[in-house]
C-alpha cells in the first residue's frame, strides 16, 4: 500500500509556475530523496504535502484519505505528517522540552506527565536530554535541528518531510543531523527528503527523484540516478555537483 500518493500536482506563485504536474508514490517505510537545483520545486512540493500551501490543481492521498478534498480537517492531516524546515523554526520563547511538548499537549491533549515522558524519551534517544531546559538560541545549529526533528517526532507521525534540513548548518554540524535521519530510516520511518547532500541521498534513499522546473524529470534507485542517469539534464546536474566536490 502506498503511504503517500501525488497526482498531477500544480502550484504557482503569481505568474511563476513552481510545480508543473508532479506524480509521486511513496510506499510505507520507503525513503525518497528529492534532488535538483535550488528553485526546482523541492521545498514547495513538501509544503504542499503538508497543506502549508494550497494546490492549484491535482490531488494528494495520505494512506487511504484524500487530503486535498474539500472540507478536509487540515489540522488532523498535519498531525499525521511531520515536517522539519531548513531554518529549524524552533519557538524561541520556549525551552527545548516545551518546544517538544507543545503539540502533544495542545493538539493531542495528552496529560502533562505522558507528554513529558514522550518528549524526554525522544530527547534521550537523540542525545539532547541535557539540553531540555535550554532555550533554542543557546544551542548550536545542529542541536537546534535535532530538537526540531524530535519536536516533529513527538506527534508520532506516519510520514516525515525533511526540507533541506542541513543546508543552514556549518559543515562540521551536518553529520550529527544526518545520523539522526539515518537512524529514523533504519527504524522504518517513511520519509520524503529534499536535500543537497548527494552522498547522503545515495546512502540512505530507496529511491531518488531528480526535479527540474517543477517536474520529476527522472527517478530510480540511487544507483541508477547517480551512476547511470538517463536524462542529459540529470547528467549535467550531477556533473556540476561533482565539480563542486559534493559527491
Amino acid at each position, binding site marked *: 500500500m502506498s503511504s503517500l500518493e501525488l497526482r498531477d500536482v500544480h502550484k504557482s506563485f503569481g505568474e511563476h509556475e513552481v510545480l508543473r504536474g508532479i506524480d509521486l508514490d511513496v510506499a510505507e517505510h520507503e525513503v525518497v530523496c528529492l534532488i535538483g537545483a535550488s528553485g526546482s520545486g523541492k521545498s514547495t512540493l513538501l509544503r504542499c504535502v*503538508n497543506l*502549508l500551501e494550497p494546490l492549484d490543481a491535482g490531488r494528494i492521498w495520505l494512506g487511504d484519505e484524500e487530503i486535498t478534498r474539500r472540507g478536509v480537517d487540515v*489540522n*488532523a492531516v*498535519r*498531525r499525521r*505528517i*511531520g*515536517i522539519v*524546515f531548513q*531554518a529549524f*523554526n*524552533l*519557538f*524561541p*520563547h520556549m525551552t527545548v522540552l516545551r518546544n517538544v511538548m*507543545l*503539540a502533544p499537549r*495542545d*493538539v493531542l491533549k495528552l496529560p502533562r506527565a505522558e507528554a513529558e515522558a514522550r518528549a524526554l524519551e525522544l530527547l534521550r534517544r537523540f542525545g539532547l536530554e541535557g539540553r531540555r531546559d535550554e532555550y533554542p*538560541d*543557546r*544551542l*548550536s*545549529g545542529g542541536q*537546534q535541528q535535532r530538537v526540531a526533528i524530535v*519536536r*516533529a517526532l513527538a*506527534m508520532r507521525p506516519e510520514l516525515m518531510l525533511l526540507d533541506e534540513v542541513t543546508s543552514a548548518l556549518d559543515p562540521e554540524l551536518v553529520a550529527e543531523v544526518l545520523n539522526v535521519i539515518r537512524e529514523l530510516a533504519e527504524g522504518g520511518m517513511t520519509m520524503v527528503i529534499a536535500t543537497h547532500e548527494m552522498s547522503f541521498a545515495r546512502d540512505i534513499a530507496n529511491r531518488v527523484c531528480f526535479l527540474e522546473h517543477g517536474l520529476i524529470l527522472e527517478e530510480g534507485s540511487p544507483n541508477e540516478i547517480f551512476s547511470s542517469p538517463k536524462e542529459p539534464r540529470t547528467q549535467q546536474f550531477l556533473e556540476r555537483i561533482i565539480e563542486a566536490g559534493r559527491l
Partner: protein
Amino acid sequence: MASEGDRRSDPEVERRSRLLGGFHFHGEGARGVAIALLSTAVFLTVVIVAVTQSAGWPEVKRTFFDWGDISSSFPDIARAFVLNVKIFLVCEVFILVFALVIAVLRSLPGPVFFPLRAFAIVYADLARGVPTILVIALLGFGAPALQLTGVPTSRVFWAGVGLILIYSGYVAEVYRAGIESVHPSQEAAARSLGLSRFQALRRVILPQAIRRVIPPLLNDFIGLQKDTALVAFLGVIDAFNQAQIDSAATFTYGAYLAAAALFVAITIPLARFTDWLIARDRRRRQTAGGFA
C-alpha cells in the same frame, strides 16, 4: 560604540549603567562623570540666573513658588490624586485586553474576515484621530443624560470608558506591530504540528509579540497616567481639579506645582523602568546573536 565589546564585560560599568537606567555617560570612567556633573552645573546656573534676573520673576515667585502654598495644598491634592491612580490602574487592565482583541481582529487573514479587519482599522483610526478631551466630554455628559436603566451615570465611569476607547486604539497598533514582527515561519512551524490558527496565535505568536512590545506599551501607559487629569473637565475632583480649587482660594499657583509633582512621581519611575527594559532587551539580543 566601537569599544562597546570590551566594556560590556566590566562589572563596574555594568552595575553603574543598571543603576542609572537611561543615563549614559559616553565619556565613561570617572572623568566622564566629572564632565557630566560640571556641564550640568554650568547649564543649571545659566538657566537659574536668567530666570531670576527677569523682570517678572518676583511676581512669578510669589504666585508659583510660595512654599507655604505648595505644602498646604499638598495633602488635599494627594488625596484627590488617589482617584487618578485608580482610574489609571483600572483603565490599564481593560485597555490591555480590549486592544489585544482589536489587534488580533486586524491580523486575521483571508476574505472571510474582511468585515472584522475593516472594523479594527476604522476603530484604530477613529480612536487615534479624535481628541481625547472630546470623547470624554461626549461620553461624560452624553451617556448619563440618556438615563438608561442599568447604565452607570457616574462621570468618572464614563471618563474611564473614554480613556479606554482612545488608548485601546494606540495600544492595538503597538500590539499589531509586535504580531507582524514575528516571522511567518513561526506560524508555519506551529501549524505544521497540527495547531489550529487560534492555538498558534495564543501559544506561539502572541507570547513573542507581546514580549517585544512591552517597552512601547509602557510608554503609552505613561501617557495614560497623565491623561487621567482630563476627568477634571467633567467636574470630577481629581488632583488637577483639586489644585484648581486650592489655587482659586489663594490666588496663587503653587497648588499646580504640587499636582505636577505627584504626576511626575509616578511617571518618571515608569519611564526609567521602560528604559531599563529596553536596555535589557538589547543586551539579551546581543548575547543571543552568537548562534542565530
